């Protein structure tokens, strides 16, 4: 690995950090337009982050170090994930360090820490949110793994760069297994990123919250890191989806010029994906929480179907 490769690696993470809040802002704009409201500024998430970073943190007196540590662990995990996910280029130093299963593990690590921090304070909402988050998580993770396995079967490897290389350079053809996996992945992404119909990121009703209930006690820089991590998570999931199902235009090498060339296409794909997410959220109502197993069970079933189709049809 050359120094250029490491430079490219840093560039990819920096692009992820910079684009993630804008993606959230863009989705919020699309949602507002679809609802017939005037949209908030695209850069509003940045202003929120700046506001939170300059505020003084208030921490519950009974908080243990887990509570203080969790935002950094979660943010770190999301940054690592941003380094692993082939958003701009496939052949980066970090990508070889972890495969798809490790990536799912990285997300699980973040989930465990945020749930621990939520229970650490001992409020009813923290425990309630943690309980619900684990409930959604244990249903979503198997479905996510099945989606990744389907893609692995096509490429013969669980390494993400290998999967993307295989999918991007395959002969033109329709892969029914990927269609099943794509629908399953969309459903899992909605649940994992606390979007409607499983959770509502815009709600103020504490009793209905899942993700927000866990972070109610956070303020200032801790909250900023949590919000940034949530944006990064959404960005990472979007990039995984794009890498698996629309892998065209991702740079092969680790040359930074190729990365710069890949960036406009990534932004265009994210913009389209964000608009689609906003459309899904506007058209759906939030599910009763006990409908979430049905929703994620369907996702799991579709992912398994994708695998079976792949095994049976060999495509």
């Amino acid at each position, binding site marked *: 690995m050359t120094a250029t490769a490491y430079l490219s690696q840093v560039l990819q993470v920096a692009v992820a950090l910079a684009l993630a809040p804008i993606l959230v802002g863009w989705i919020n704009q699309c*949602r507002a337009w*679809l*609802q*017939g*409201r005037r949209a908030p500024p695209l850069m509003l998430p940045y202003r929120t982050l700046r506001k939170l970073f300059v505020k003084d943190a208030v921490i519950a007196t009974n908080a243990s170090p887990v509570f203080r540590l969790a935002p950094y662990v979660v943010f770190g995990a999301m940054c690592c994930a941003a380094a692993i996910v082939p958003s701009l280029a496939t052949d980066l130093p970090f990508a070889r360090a972890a495969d798809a299963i490790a990536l799912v593990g990285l997300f699980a690590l973040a989930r465990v820490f945020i749930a621990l921090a939520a229970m650490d304070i001992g409020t*009813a*909402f923290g425990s*309630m949110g943690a309980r619900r988050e684990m409930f959604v998580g244990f249903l979503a993770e198997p479905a996510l793994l099945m989606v990744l396995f389907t893609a692995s079967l096509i490429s013969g490897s669980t390494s993400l760069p290998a999967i993307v290389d295989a999918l991007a350079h395959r002969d033109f053809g329709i892969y029914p297994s990927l269609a099943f996996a794509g629908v399953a992945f969309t459903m899992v992404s909605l649940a994992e990123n606390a979007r*409607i*119909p499983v959770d*509502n990121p*815009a*709600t*103020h*009703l*504490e*009793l*209905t*919250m899942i993700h*927000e209930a866990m972070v*109610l006690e956070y303020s200032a820089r801790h909250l900023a890191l949590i919000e940034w991590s949530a944006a990064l998570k959404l960005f990472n999931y979007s990039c995984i989806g794009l890498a698996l199902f629309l892998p065209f235009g991702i740079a092969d090498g680790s040359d930074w010029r190729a990365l710069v060339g890949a960036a406009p296409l990534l932004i265009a794909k994210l913009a389209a994906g964000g608009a689609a997410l906003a459309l899904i959220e*506007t058209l*759906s*109502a*939030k*599910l*009763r*929480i*006990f*409908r979430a197993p049905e929703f994620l069970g369907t996702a799991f079933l579709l992912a398994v179907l994708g695998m079976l189709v792949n095994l049976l049809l060999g495509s």
Partner: protein
Amino acid sequence: MKLGALRLVPAPLAAPMPAQRARVGSGELLSACRVAREAGAELVALWVTDDSDRGEGFCVRVLLRADDGLLLLEHRLPDASSRYPDLASVFPSAARMQRAAFDLTGIAAQADDDRPWLWMAAWPIDRFPLRRDFAASPSWQPGDEDYRFVRVEGEGVHEIAVGPVHAGTIEPGHFRFQVVGEKVLRLEERLGFTHKGIEKRFTTLPIAEAPRLAGRICGDSTVAYAFAFAQALEGLAGVAPPPRALWLRALALERERIANHLGDLGALGNDAGLAFGLAQFSRLREDVLRGNRAAFGHRLAMDFVVPGGVARDPADAQLSAMRDEGTRIADDARALRTIYDEHAGVQDRFRTCGRVAPDLARMLGMTGLAARASGGTRDLRADFPGVPYAALDVRAMHREQGDVAARVAVRFDELFESLRLVGAIVDALPPGAIAATMPPRLPAGLALGSVEGWRGPVTFAVETGTDGAIRRCHPHDPSWQNWPAVEHAALGNIVPDFPLINKSFNLAYSGHDL
């Protein structure tokens, strides 16, 4: 009310509908309530007055409403240590009213539940604000209170305490859930956080200022409150407002109902996760509020209804704009209703959620909109139509299911009915004066006012002294009757559905806490 079985001696009482008052002696109060309940009467309000400055001790007043009018039972107690029978066995909604009456006057019912209701250690526990000898002291510091919530024991049962400070900017109420997993085993409410001493303030305020205070008890029902208060004052003064004023009051009342129903329908969609509904209904509500500002001088029509009539005469152009706007709002609301009705996700959240069966609603004595969603049919506008409702043929809307979907459906039905009424009022508005002159000094006496606000009947009992000032003023919000029903509606539901259930009732905090 048919008093044959009661052996009471009724006297007439000034009110916008047939009303009587009757003294009941000791031992008669409970039996009188029981007979009245069997005859179909419901409890409107219960309050206690301190008449010790006149040497008459205290008076417990119980206001009942039957199909043929109001009946005020007056039960005298010789001193502060006397107790009166617990009426909760006949009218369950009396329980909290009795507790509140004790907090404010120190007169206790013979009830098992001796916990405070409005008292939150803001004043010493042995002082009672509505006693004649009460004097507030600036040296009183807020104290701590130890409120005994009922706990549920058992394996896996735990408690979730919500509020009074919430994650959103909403009114303060405390909700104590006993849950297993996500299932609600018991819900207990604690209210009183917005107690401002309204009843006390009425007695210290010059009478000219009182209508403004009445209009500020509960902001979303300001027209209903000002309307009912004006009725009571007019009843005391023997003044009849001119017809145009009565029609304009009804116009403002219906527009208040329209604005609130539009706001609630949007909020209910939003609580089910359909933010599109909130955006669209908020837009329609905003149009109504802007029309109010143009015609009534205030977005909520605050201070528009005054004793004697109304404060200003809207221009013809503004009135016809209301009619045209009503047609447009009805079209848009109809389209939105189709979206709600055909949205599988929304219907899945609304249906069977937070159900109060008709039998339970009758037993609890629910009132107003929430009662009409649970099989009730009472609506003051249809049951006691004065001017102008007698000429408008108001239909009381009702549903049987008693779930969130039913409360949404009643709101939609009432919205369209009120839009029709606004059009009819504008078309038939009589010309003439908009206010009668009120006498500078009110005679001593007691009078009632009661109108069907958007939540239900808002009632005022106003008593004046020989000096013409207000001796005792008791405003009553329909939320008193319906808050206990929310506790029942939540049972067996899951915790994350509670905000939707609560919103479908949308009861008052400020109007209840006073």
